[in-house]
């Protein structure tokens, strides 16, 4: 529980962050610290330098940009939970943020940190996938935007380059008749998702127009459940239709297994929780 020695830099601007990242290739960005510091205390991570972005202006905050809601990378779960605009337009975020870790984690942990860390059992990557979010990142060559569906590459691996910093997460505002839900089977010790399913649907004339399902925990990286989405799109979302679509939930997942939940059990939970999340999302859409 005593980390190895490291250097500490407190950045004051995004360009300075990028510069520090270039100067310290073995450095890590520190935001809320609730994933990184425990790993350092266990000496599972020994970064040579920490680049603290906690006080970079403009990285924290939630903006209503008309068609989208823009969340700064250092916005905490607590900030998200307090936001009326989030609760009204993107209740999926509120619902999921409310079951992240414990109060201490929610007070300090950041949305950007959750995305960039890409823990395979974190809640927010599934939410970003279901809401079709995109990540604004800044590097030495300027700015680029990466869709969530391309951002999460593998366990603890994202599309970010080592010298890039995530600055904003952009969520499009749902249009039309939509519903959202997050269903989580939490690990009794860690609180992480053994399986977490985020579902988003829009209905048109009683049929499913758009459906996006993000699954975390079950596999090595959070993923869209494409087979589920294909099975349900254009259908009338009866309980039976949802159940048979959810049966595809584990397809395409590279499943995780551990002492608490085997690969087989996780696949089963993915199906059960996909069904539950979709049912609730459809019910919410129907009002």
């Amino acid at each position, binding site marked *: 529980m005593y980390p190895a*020695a490291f250097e500490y830099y407190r950045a004051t601007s995004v360009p300075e962050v990028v510069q520090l990242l270039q100067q310290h290739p073995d450095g890590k960005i520190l935001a809320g610290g609730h994933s990184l510091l425990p790993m350092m205390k266990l000496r599972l991570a020994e970064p040579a330098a920490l680049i603290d972005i906690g006080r970079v202006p403009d990285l924290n905050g939630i903006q209503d940009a008309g068609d989208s809601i823009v969340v700064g990378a250092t916005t905490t779960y607590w900030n998200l939970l307090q936001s009326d605009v989030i609760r009204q337009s993107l209740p999926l975020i509120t619902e999921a943020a409310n079951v992240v870790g414990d109060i201490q984690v929610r007070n300090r942990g950041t949305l950007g940190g959750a995305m960039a860390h890409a823990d395979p059992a974190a809640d927010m990557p599934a939410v970003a996938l279901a809401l079709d979010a995109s990540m604004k990142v800044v590097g030495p060559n300027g700015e680029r935007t990466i869709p969530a569906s391309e951002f999460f590459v593998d366990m603890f691996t994202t599309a970010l380059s080592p010298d890039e910093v995530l600055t904003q997460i952009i969520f499009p505002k749902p249009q039309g008749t939509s519903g959202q839900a997050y269903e989580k089977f939490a*690990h009794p010790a860690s609180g992480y998702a053994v399986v977490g399913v985020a579902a988003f649907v829009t209905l048109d004339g009683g049929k499913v127009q758009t459906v996006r399902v993000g699954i975390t925990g079950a596999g090595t990286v959070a993923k869209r459940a494409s087979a589920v989405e294909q099975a349900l799109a254009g259908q009338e979302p009866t309980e039976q239709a949802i159940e048979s679509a959810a049966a595809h939930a584990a397809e395409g997942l590279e499943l995780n297994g551990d002492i608490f939940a*085997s690969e087989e059990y996780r696949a089963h939970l993915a199906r059960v929780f996909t069904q539950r999340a979709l049912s609730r999302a459809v019910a919410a859409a129907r009002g």
Partner: protein
Amino acid sequence: MAVTKMFGASVKRREDPRMITGRANYTDDVRLPGTLSLVILRSPYAHARIKSINVEKARQMPGVVAVYTGKDLVDSLAPVPCAWLPPNSDLKVPEYRALAVDTVRYVGDGVAAVVAENRYQAQDAAAAIEVEYEMLPAVVDQEKATQDGAPQLYADVPNNTAFVWRLAGGDIDAALRDADVVVSQRLINHRLIPTAMEPRAAVAHYNPGSGELTLWCTSQNPHIHRLLMSAVTGIPETKIRVIATDVGGGFGSKIPFYAGEMIAVAISKDLGRPVKWVEDRRENFVATTHGRDHIDYVDVAAKQDGTITGIRVKAYANMGAYLSTAAPGVPTWLFGLMLSGPYKIPNISVEVHGVLTNTTPTDAYRGAGRPEATYVLERMMDLVADRLGMDPVEVRRKNFIPKEEFPYTVATTLQYDSGDYEAALNRALEIVGYEQFRKEQEAARAQGRLLGIGFSTYVEVCGLAPSQAAGAMGFQGGLWESATVRVHPSGKVSVFTGSNPHGQGEETTFAQLVADELGVPLDDVEIVHGDTGRIPFGMGTYGSRSTAVGGSALIYAARKVRDKGAKIAAHLLEVSPDDIVFDQGRYYVKGAPDRVKTFQEVAGAAYLAWNMPEGVTPGLEETHFFDPINNTYPFGTHVCVVEVDPATGKVQFLRYVAVDDVGNVINPMIVDGQVHGGIAQGLAQAVYETAVYDENGQLLSGSLMDYALPTASMVPTYEVDRTVTPTPVNPMGLKGAGETGTIASTPAVVNAIIDALKPYGITHLDMPLTPQRIWQAIQESQKGS
């Protein structure tokens, strides 16, 4: 000052303000100038030969003062002692060095020790020590470890069997032969990790000038630690002071005497500087003793009407890699003696194999042996009921020892003091609304919902004593307790107790007892414990014994004080002591209540000593050593109601009813708290907590990210009630309440879940009943149908 009766009052815990505002003085809070930080390098392998250790690089690192290996400490430290040696068990105590000398035998076995100016430097240097290991095959399963061809931990312990212990009463063979039914089951009572909130720690300060050692450490029994520290270091007991005043929980894991504090002492003595060692949580998981870990083969003989006629148990107890201080007593006496439970079982036979494996040593963990025995009995009661098609409540009721028959001697030779088992059961059934529940359960089942109810009707042994019994059991100590009551000239009272509460609240309850006995305000009584430099020799706190035994000692010491005070008061009032009445802190003349001396006036007179009765010495202070004639036997009924989600196997707790009988109760709020915490721990074994090793002896559940300690949101609201059946064995009529919850709750929860799964034909599953295990069992049951 008017003083109301404190016995029975829910006084708020006086120790809490300092504990919950960060003002307690735990071992890690002790900061002495010049203290060195000690880090122990631990083996990453479960079984390996140490080929070489290179400490040169570590020695050169910044801040490092010294590095020690096992060989360096062989001369200054005798092996870690084992102090419970059950006779007639062919016991073999393997050599347990504070730091391994040539072989490591579990992940966490100490290999080297580094002291540096600060913790970071010590940690960095420990990482720079180069150890070359030659891997040896490991064994973690105690049953496999006894088989021929299994890896051997010690050349002189064949089949890794440290002892085989037997106890029998009646004729079990005849009972099994003549039974209408014999119900057999293999039960696993899996390994748990005590996980006290405060990890273990030690600050050793050896003064080379005076030759005195002061040791702050996390101990439930500081005098035992002092005695054993003297034995392993050769420092005389008179030169050792052990201080363990504020201890952040123990649950049994701070009874044992460990390598950590021995190493700290040896290094402090070697360097003449204070040395501090504090476990981090990861180290705590491997270096502090674990609990439970039994495999029990059980056969129960019963008649068609549900009468149990015999029980036979063959147990394999996993002792870990070495025998910890009290370890051999836990799966033997504390388990075997309790196999009659609250039932009349005329024929009992138990055989326990204590097995050494490449795992962290086990020792007492809240309940220590009694939860294992209760689990065996209560699980078997349900299996017998199931086999005979009887209601599990009726099987229990049929076999209860009736209240008229106490004191009652069971087949294992224990004499139960008092009991009314049916009263507690009936009260629990009434609270839970049993008949109504069975109807609801039936209706729910018709809808595919899985409701279940589980019972645990238990009896346990508390107030661990008397010393003569301890001797017969091979416990290398007495089981009495001491107390000194010192009244100061102002009438304020200091109580010095040999008990060492570390969360149980005796700073409050003991003060309540003394306030009543001496008629002084509660605030005038201080309870001093945990410092061998201040208290008389005491045995410590474990086995729910502090109030039953330690509380009795202080009652008697207080009464001696009161009686001496009466002599002084009589002298001052110029009457015979026989004419003095003592009531609520006032000595007055019988029939003349205005002729009075207050307790405070008498205390002042005792110290002025200007005018003492003949033959009465000055001062007002008395000591009493109390050795009870028997243990106490709390009992009760716990009922758990659950719903299982068939889709996921997840368990939801709907109700939890606990009716305990701990005799008279000093402080109902504190007893409720003990019951609540105990249930949480026992329930957690049923569904959450489990220590998991892989085949190579790596602890897979080695952190709080994997090991599921329950939080408040993971346990139900408890409905707690009590019946009161006083014990005759101590002056307060109380039995002890520290472990009832842990002992009772585990089988109640398991029985409830198995009851919920009855529609699938499931009659038994081993703990922990995690969602996956339940889901798998449901899947398998459906394959067959």
